[in-house]
Every structure is written in C-alpha cells, then in structure tokens.
C-alpha cells in the first residue's frame, strides 16, 4: 500500500537512508528537516545548536539525491519547551532525564506527527534503529545501535503511524548503502552528545540556567564532607568531579548515591551502596497486552545499558520491578524498558529505587 510518508531528515546518514528506503518502497515521501533551535535574541535566526545550517543543507541535498520534496519546519519553540526546559527542570528536581527519549515522545511523535497527520500524511519515517512488526516494537538488529530504548516511551497509537526502515540493517550496512545511493552524508560522523549542548558541557549548561546553589555533600551517616555549587550537577552513580577534600576512611572511592533537591544535599558513599534491587516506575506505557499480575521479563535501565532479568508487577498506576541481580547507579528520571527477547513490552519512568532490605 502506498502511504503518504513524512521523512524526518536531520541531515545525518541514518535519516537519509531511511527516507530513501521509504521512497524506494513506493511510498509518497516528503522530507522535512526540523529546525529545533533558534536564538530569540537575534532578529533573524542565526546561531543554531542542534540543527546547524550545515545539517539543514545536508538534509536538503539528501532529499535532492532521493528525488523527494523537502521543507524545513520550525519546531524550535516546542523543542525548547518540551525538551530543553524539561531537561533543566528534571535536573533541578534531582533526576537524570534522557532528552533523546523526550524528543521522540514530545517532538517527533507528537508535534511532528500530529502536524503531519493533520496535513494528510499517514506516517512519520525516521532513521532510528528499531523494528516495527505488526505493532510490536523490537530491537534493531545492530546491537550497538539499537534505539528501541529511546522509542519505548511512544504509545501504540504513535507507533501505529511510525516507520523505522533501518531496523533490519547494521550501521555499517547503512553507511555502505548510503555510499551506494550516492548520498553525500555517507561518511558523516555519528552524533553522540546532547544536541542542544554543543560543547558537551552539561554541568556548565545547567549552571548557566539554574545558577549557583551551594549545598552540602554528606556521607550515609550525614557527616558533611564538602560543598557543591548545585545538586543539579550530579547524577546518581557519578564518581568523578565530586571535589571532596577528605578521602574516605577506608580509602575507597565514593559515588553519588542520592540527590535531594529539597534539602539541596548530595549523598555519597561506597560503590556497593549503589546497588539497586527494586525500582518503581511511573507513567507506564504498554506496548504489549497490559499484565495484571507479576510477570518475568528483562529490563534495560539506560540507553545502551545492561539488561537484567526481572519480575515486573503493575501497582496501581505504577510499575514495580524486582531485579534478579543488582543494578548499579540507577538514576531516577531514566526509563525502565521491559523486554521479552527483542520485543519491547512496556516502559516507565524510574521514580524510586531501593536495595533489598533498605
């Protein structure tokens, strides 16, 4: 069936090949580059963090090569509100957000998809490494690139209008295909860091927005070990950059165990205190038949992170997950994504974590 497909084109190799594959499959494809960053201080949008003029041009040239119409849509306001501000306020609340996941949830598969559907498109196509088969979201075949984790927050309704043409191929295969298709972006480097923090300095970015908020760094007994400039700059599990003058009595390294925005306190302690056996996720999204009672599955707690055997159990509007083996450094705000084999069953945002007996 020929669908009217809107291909989100970042200017990178993945989304270019995804668009090309959708067009080759016979769909009526239109390329759209999302302008996600604007500088409201300048009278004309100039400096861009995520979507530079170069990215926009690369996307346009890829669309030319594929032979599809191409437009730039300004989604900067939505991106700023739903991703950047969310990112800052999550850190301010002592959590560790995943902005890529939020961007998929709020921008690509809400703002962009809603607009596309209203304008008569049937689906949004992206260059994510994941598979959609009969409504089931599955991992992409390239283990190293699999992006099902950052897509697992999308609802079945959103995924019903999504198209991920790259899930059956490895990244190396996509690069080779881009080369074969004559797409100039074939050897463009992968993007890694948070797109709206161009220099990669997350702490500096947050400090610029949240300001200095000094508070104590304490150990598990409440002894003050030092001072921080803002609890938001810390992530559970973090070891480097704690700036504690005094070494631990046992001489072992210390890790961030907990961040309390209410008391503006960062708690540090030994590595084993990071062990988490139980976690509670909120706002669960079911991508399979919702379960009523406990069920065994596997859980992933961060992008490209380890996968643990677990038993999950709905608890009201929350999801309780008991891990078979301890996970280390689980940060509230990240997503817990439940898998059965390579299929995503559900996702939820980690709200609380606990050690057994704690």
């Amino acid at each position, binding site marked *: 069936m020929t669908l009217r497909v809107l291909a989100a084109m970042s200017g990178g190799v993945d989304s270019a090949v995804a668009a090309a594959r959708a067009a080759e499959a016979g769909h009526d494809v239109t390329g759209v580059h999302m302008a996600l960053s604007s500088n409201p201080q300048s009278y*004309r*949008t100039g400096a861009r963090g995520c979507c530079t003029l170069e990215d926009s041009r690369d996307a346009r040239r890829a669309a030319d090569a594929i032979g599809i119409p191409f437009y*730039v*849509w300004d989604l900067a306001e939505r991106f700023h509100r739903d991703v950047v501000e969310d990112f800052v306020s999550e850190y301010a609340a002592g959590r560790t957000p995943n902005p890529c996941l939020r961007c998929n949830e709020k921008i690509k598969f809400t703002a962009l998809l809603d607009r596309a559907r*209203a*304008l008569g498109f049937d689906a949004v196509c992206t260059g994510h490494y994941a598979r959609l088969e009969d409504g089931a979201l599955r991992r992409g075949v390239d283990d190293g690139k699999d992006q099902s984790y950052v897509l697992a927050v999308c609802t079945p309704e959103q995924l019903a209008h999504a198209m991920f043409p790259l899930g059956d191929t490895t990244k190396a295969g996509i690069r080779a295909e881009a080369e074969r298709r004559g797409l100039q972006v074939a050897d463009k480097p992968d993007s890694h860091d948070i797109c709206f923090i161009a220099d990669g300095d997350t702490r500096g970015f947050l400090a610029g927005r949240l300001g200095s908020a000094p508070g104590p760094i304490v150990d598990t007994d409440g002894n003050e070990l030092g001072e921080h400039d803002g609890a938001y700059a810390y992530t559970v599990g973090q070891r480097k950059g704690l700036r504690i003058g005094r070494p631990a009595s046992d001489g072992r390294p210390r890790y961030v165990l907990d961040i309390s925005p209410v008391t503006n306190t960062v708690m540090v302690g030994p590595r084993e205190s990071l062990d988490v056996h139980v976690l509670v996720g909120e706002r669960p999204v079911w991508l399979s038949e919702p379960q009523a009672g406990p069920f065994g599955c596997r859980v992933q707690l961060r992008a490209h992170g380890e996968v643990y055997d677990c038993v999950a159990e709905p608890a009201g509007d929350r999801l309780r997950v008991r891990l078979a083996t301890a996970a280390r450094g689980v940060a509230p705000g990240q997503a817990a994504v439940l898998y059965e084999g390579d299929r995503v069953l559900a996702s939820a945002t980690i709200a609380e974590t606990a050690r057994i007996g704690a």
Partner: protein
Amino acid sequence: MVTYLDHAATTPMSPEAVDAMTAELRRLGNPSSLHTVGRRARRVVEESREIIADAYGARPSEVVFTSGGTEADNLAVKGIYWARRAADPSRTRVLAGSVEHHAVLDAVRWLGDHEGARVEWIPSDEYGRIRPEALREAIGPGGGADVALVTVMWANNEVGTVQPVAELAAVAREHDIPLHTDAVQAAGQLPVRFAASGAQALTLSGHKLGGPLGVGALLLAKPKPPLHLDPVPVLHGGGQERDVRSGTLDTPAIAGFAAAVQATLARRDVEARRLAGLRDLLVDAVRSAVPDAILNGDPVDRLPGNAHFSFPGCEGDALLMLLDARGIACSTGSACSAGVSQPSHVLLAMGADPARARGSLRFTLGHTSTEADVKALADAIGPVVERARRAGLT
C-alpha cells in the same frame, strides 16, 4: 505543469534578454581593456547603460552596475552613511522604513551595531505605507542636520504597497538629507523616474524584471555637496564604476539586463493593466473560497501583480507545502537561509499579530501569468486552507 505565482521572487527571463545575453556570452572582451576587443565589450556596456538610464529617467553617468539588488542596497546605505558622516561626524542618524527588504534592513542594522549609527525605523501604517508625516516626525523638530540618510523602498516586496517616494524625497530635501529607495519590485511594473522622484539613489535588479540573475544597478545622482556625496565604496578594486564600485563588468548580464528593461518598459503599462485585472480575479477567487482571508497591504495603491493574504488559523509553511504538492508555487514572505520562515517584519510593522503574520502567503503575477494560473489557485486554495487549519498553528 507548474502554476508559478512567485514572480516577485524571480520572473522568467524575457526572450529578448536571453538572446542578448547568450549572444554576448559567445563574445570576448573585458570592457576595461583598451584594445579593440575591449572597446567592443565596453560599447555593449555603455549602450546598455544608456538604455537603462533612459528607461528610468536618469543620466547614463548615474547608472552604477552592481551584482544585483542586495549589493546596490548595501552600497547606497553603507556608502552614503560613511560619506555623509565623514563630511560631518555629527551625521550618524539613519532613518529607514520599517517595512524594508532585508538587503536594506540588515545593512542599516549593521551600521547601528558596528558603525555607531543611531537607527530609527519610520513606522508604517496598517497598509505598510510610510507616510510623509511619519518621516517628518522621525526627522524631528531639531531638523535633519544629524541625519546621514533616509531609505524607503518604492514598493514593498511582500505586501506590494507602493510608497509615496516623491513626497518622502521632498520632505528629506527640505532638510538637505539624501534619500535612497529600493525600487527592485517597482521597476518592472510602475513608472519609476529617477530624477523626477527626487531620490539621490535608487536600486534596480535584473532578474525581477525579466533580466538575468546576478546583475543590478544603483542609480546614483551626481554629487551635490552637502546634500549628496558619492558613497564610500563597499567593494574596493579597479574602480570600474565611477570609483564607487569595483569588479570586472559582466557584459553578458548587463546586455541581458538592458534588453529586459527595454522589453519590459515597451509593454509596461498594458502589462500592468493586464496583471492588475488578473490580480483582482485572484483576490476575488481567494475571498470567495476563503471568506475570512485578509488581504494585506494597500487595497488600491499596490503593485499590479501582488496579492498577499493572511489565512487565520493556518501556518504559512503548511499552506505553501500543500500548494506545492498541487503544483502551485507561491511564497510565505522572505525565507531565511535555513529555509525557516520567520513571522514577517513587514506584517508585524503593519500591526499584525504574530499568528496573522505567520499564516500569510504571497501570490505574485508576472509576464507569463495567465487566467489558467488564477483558476488553478482558485480550485486549490479552499481545500488547502481547510487542511492547513486542521494542522493549526504549531
């Protein structure tokens, strides 16, 4: 089959211009060379200069060829500012219309940001018109001794409103202030006469009137201190054009430009009436398909080929894409280099709220436009607006 309703962006070259230009592309000669080969090329340039001067009521020596409208605007705005300020350091005020094209707007802003200019934007009325009273008020009770220049376009590129340039120039002249006018949109459709307008500098562009891209001219009155001085150059080099503009003259483009001016002027008045008739049909068709569409710009005193609407509840980008998919080419206003359209400063200056500014489309007709083009738009615009309304304003 494309329905091209974007002639204000660029219009097809006239056959006369294509012939003149291609003939010249096959010939040799740098117009600045002193030998026979060079003199032949120089003759083409000078004949072209005379044609253009004659067409716009200027003297041949007042025609300075440039690479296009943007360069001519930059030369006028920056060059005259620098020259006037050099003659009297207190002259640092620049009075510019608030609905100018970016080539003027950004050049003026740059002077403000980097050259100590005190920039004042002359407010427009709800139709995008800069009234002489507004200029008088901007000059202020203290007189214009500290004003370097006034710049107000002849006709607006977005909403098509025609400015009372001669009246504005008369006000400026009372205070011995030179006036520059960007006549890029007007020069193909309206009787533009340089000397009679009272302007000291006037911008022309080739490709907006059937000539090639990449060539334009600044009509520049002979210096008459203190009112008017030759601008300080923006491009330095061989001094080919009156020492005001350097760069090897582009003989083929200049020949094409002059041929287009000649062809366009020969049929201008008849063509203007024809376009105004088509434009009125287009306006009626849009209004009957979309009763709440707002026609922007002066309802009467506007470019004959221009119709500019706001469609409440729609995003201009969405309208453009949906029309494009149906083979209809139009514009949301001025596009920036990333391809993202910003709310038009012209509509904002006219008092439109940002939503109305973002939901606007410009349709512009030109010498190849026919009733079939209007019909195609008439058939498409209703369903397209309905569809875009569903997507709303994001």
